[in-house]
């Protein structure tokens, strides 16, 4: 069994199934995007037991007994958004949206680890995700804003 967004799901039927394809094709969780399928673009990033990982670089069978959180699991209802999603919305951290789920999951894991990062740490923290249209300046702003929103939430 794999605990996906808090719900127990039966594992994949084939050991060849990548975690990314299992989420999209077997569970219909198409919020996890698939870009390069070799670990470069970061679109398919999900949380595995709370840490961001590339779901295209893992077999679904390896998630057996673990918790997986996808973009759908961050804010299950349409509103309110998760603080990281809210920050991307406010700061124009997305344009076409293809890379966004990966960025949001990476940033969620990054800020959980480092709640008040410096600008250099933010740049380092998002370096594993590629965006081809919005531009990293707005995304960096969104990360700073997300850190504020998360801090407000904790206060």
């Amino acid at each position, binding site marked *: 069994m794999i605990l996906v967004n808090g719900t127990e799901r039966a594992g994949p039927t084939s*050991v*060849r199934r*990548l975690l990314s*394809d299992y989420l999209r094709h077997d569970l219909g969780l198409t919020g996890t995007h698939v870009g390069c*399928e*070799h*670990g470069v673009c*970061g679109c398919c*990033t999900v949380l*595995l037991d709370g*840490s*961001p*990982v*590339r779901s*295209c*670089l*893992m*077999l679904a*069978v*390896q998630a057996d007994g673990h918790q997986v959180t996808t973009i759908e699991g961050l804010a299950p209802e349409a509103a309110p958004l998760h603080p990281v999603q809210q920050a991307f919305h406010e700061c124009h951290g997305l344009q076409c949206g293809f890379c966004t789920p990966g960025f949001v999951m*990476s940033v969620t*894991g*990054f800020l959980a680890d480092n709640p008040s990062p410096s600008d250099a740490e933010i740049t*380092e*923290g998002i*370096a*594993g995700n590629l965006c081809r249209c919005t531009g990293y300046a707005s995304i960096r702003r969104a990360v700073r804003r997300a850190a504020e929103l998360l801090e407000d939430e904790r206060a």
Partner: protein
Amino acid sequence: MKPPVFEYHAPRSVAETVALLADLEDAKVLAGGQSLIPLLNFRLARPAHLVDVNGVTELERVHERDSGVAVGAAVRQATAERHPVLRGRCPLVPLALRHVAHQVIRNRGTVCGSLAHADPASELCAVLLVLGGHVVARSRRGERTIEAHDLFRGTFETALEADELVTEAWFPEHGPDVSLVEESRRHGDFAMAGVVRAGDRLALFGVAPTPVLADPADPTRGLQPSADLECSADFKLHLVQVLSRRAATREGSA
């Protein structure tokens, strides 16, 4: 881009793992998978069997032994990067890990996996070489130690036999006078050239089929790098000169 057909095995102990490796024809160890899974996705690797060691908890250990630190085969790079024992006794290892791909990759990738994969541009392989470390290889035939200078044989080639599992990598204790500098086109990419220094010992990576030790006074002597898509051979030689100078004068990394 999907992995080819393989049989999947998830052993729970080292004994079970080496028994599988001994009995199975064409088996490959799967650790962090951050190099192996892309190779499967690209169909560049087509092993008949994958032996997944992620469930072998006895391989998750970081411990001090013989004036150094041993890192088990299932220890993630992210764990090693933050490990207080490595930070205190082997500061070059966490320092180098900051240059290995990106944080999200290091959350899954393992230290021993990088060594067994033996990418010519691997920081960790050069670190093991410059420090004079070793790996411990186990098979049903027994256990042996492979010194770093014997381990790396060529591009993605090591002295490991098909039935051997790297159970741990051992790094000798060292002082804080270490540095690592590398140059890549984009942050987190494989380096076009890199230099790692521990005291007065220097190793180069990304400029030969394996990491190589170099003379700090003449770091390019005997070096014949091949050009690749990003970098001519001459430019690699130039980078080695510049990076060696920087490595000599700088502590830490860039």
